[in-house]
């Protein structure tokens, strides 16, 4: 009996030892990884520090330039190369900044593809300072200008715009499309914002192109009344409606000066802004 127990116990103890050994192995592997990472980062940091010194020295050398001293009158020939390197790096930084600037101001970010046979353009959209969707398009330039690929929503009248302008004037086409896409994004964003900010107003109807919007508001008063506001966006290049109609069972309400004013508000300012104002003035709930 003892011998068997020893055997089993011994076996168990051996297993325990092995198990711990594996854990040790894991631990030492992780330690190795951390050690390697630390060494890599240290090297990166040191290189940057060295470069930083170099850049500072180059600034001093640049002083020489501003004082009109000859450039190649530097301590070592290597110094001149380093100087050029820093200057080129600075130039590269400026060029990258300019690229970013063009991107931020809504540029088309034109990229040539397939050895110049086609180009890709991007349409950036924004509303009230918030950047929204970016739409992309590939234009094939082999014989005539054709749209080969794009991710513009299908409800958008892309075909008709392309038919009218694309062949005659590429820049005008891009400009018109950018204008319409931005207006579309703006109208869509207004619907999102009014759902978010003015919860008390219900969106009864809206469509893919966001050129019609029907809202149900609750007019404040002795008895709250339902008012239906219909906003029609006849001009697809604009974010504001071309027509606003107010409907209410109570005709005196919809004809009242207060609601005439509300109608103007809805015509002159973005939907969510107008509704927030109306709520603040106590006109609606």
């Amino acid at each position, binding site marked *: 009996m003892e011998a068997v127990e020893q055997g089993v116990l011994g076996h168990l103890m051996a297993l325990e030892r092995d198990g711990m050994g594996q854990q040790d192995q894991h*631990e030492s592997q*992780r*330690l190795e990884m*951390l*050690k390697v*990472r*630390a060494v890599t*980062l*240290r090297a*990166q*940091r040191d290189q*940057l*520090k060295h*470069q*930083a010194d170099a*850049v*500072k020295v180059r600034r001093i050398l*640049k002083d020489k*330039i*501003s004082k009109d001293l000859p*450039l190649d009158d530097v301590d070592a020939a290597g110094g001149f*190369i380093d100087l*050029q*390197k*820093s*200057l*080129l*790096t*600075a*130039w*590269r*930084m*400026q*060029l*990258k*900044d*300019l*690229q*970013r*600037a*063009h991107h*931020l*101001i*809504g*540029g*088309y*970010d*034109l990229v*040539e593809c397939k050895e110049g046979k086609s180009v890709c353009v991007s349409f950036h959209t*924004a509303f*009230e*300072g*918030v*950047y929204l969707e970016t739409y992309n398009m590939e234009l094939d330039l082999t014989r005539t200008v054709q749209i080969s690929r794009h991710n513009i929503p299908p409800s958008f009248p892309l075909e008709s715009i392309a038919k009218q302008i694309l062949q005659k004037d590429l*820049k005008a086409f891009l*400009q018109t499309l950018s*204008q319409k896409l*931005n207006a579309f994004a703006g109208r869509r964003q207004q619907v999102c914002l009014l759902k978010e900010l003015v919860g008390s107003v219900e969106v009864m109807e809206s469509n893919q192109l966001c050129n019609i919007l029907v809202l149900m508001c609750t007019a404040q008063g002795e008895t709250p009344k339902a008012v239906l506001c219909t906003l029609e966006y006849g001009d697809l*290049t604009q974010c*504001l409606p071309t027509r606003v109609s107010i409907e209410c069972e109570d005709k005196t309400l919809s004809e009242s000066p207060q609601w005439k004013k509300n109608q103007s508000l809805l015509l002159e300012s973005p939907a969510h802004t107008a509704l927030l104002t109306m709520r603040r003035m106590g006109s609606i709930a």
Partner: protein
Amino acid sequence: MEQKYEEEIQMLQQEIEMLEAEQEETLRSIFIEHGDRLQHELLCLVFEEGGGEQDLSILITEVRELEKDLRRQTEINGIALNECFVKTLHKSERKLVQQLRLAGHCSVLLFQVEFAVTEIQEDDALRRRVTELNIVVDGVEFKDFSAFVSRVEDTKDLLLFFRTLRTFSERCEERRQTFQHFQEKYPDVVSLPEGCRSELMIIRSPQLPGTSMTIFWKIDVSMEGVVKPSLELLLKMSDQAREFDTKKVMENGSNYFQSLLQILGVEASIEGLIRTMFVRSHKTSQRSRRGNFIPNLLFDINTCTITR
């Protein structure tokens, strides 16, 4: 033991971030201070073939490619940026706050734009917004532009500003070219008292003193950025001539001009007006488009002729 390494790694990462930010700043300030001289010195290096060390050749190629791309963007966007100052106010893994100051031109229209932009990397997307916007425009064309600029600054609509600027500059360019064309073609009759970039063109004939036609070519920009050109005609006649104005050309002249614009378009309409200023001798008895500008003038809309 592990912890010690982890701490060191975190510290190194922070140091690296700081050093990289410092380096960016230094590079930007070098360019600000010596940008012109820099480009002048290195122009030959970058734009001529051959030369340059191993290390440099990669940089040179990069700079060449970036310059080429920048020309492409400038051309397609219609906006040229002469100055670009970037200041990074905050940079971390998920957030970037920058201030940019740009100066440039769109055709002949100059602008200066300062704005701040914040980018936050959220799980699914990059959220970017403009948080400050200041715009300065310069040029005689901009006299009625300020309402639009104020609105755009309030709504922070940087993209709308540049879209509108492009369209506006195209309309201004059309006007400038048309005015200049007529002044060169008829220097005795056409004058641009405020220059070819202004909205005024005056037509007068030395043989008909006291009589003039002033064309106002306004380019209106609404607060929402809608660009609308409109032309108006103002007729001036000497008292003597007015006595003969039985057909009431003075009163109806500007309306006739509007109709003419719709049918013939701008250039042909202005050409027609100018030609009425040429005084012919009495020999001509037949109808012709050239005629004396006498009060008994009638614009015949149907046949597009000017007869007595």
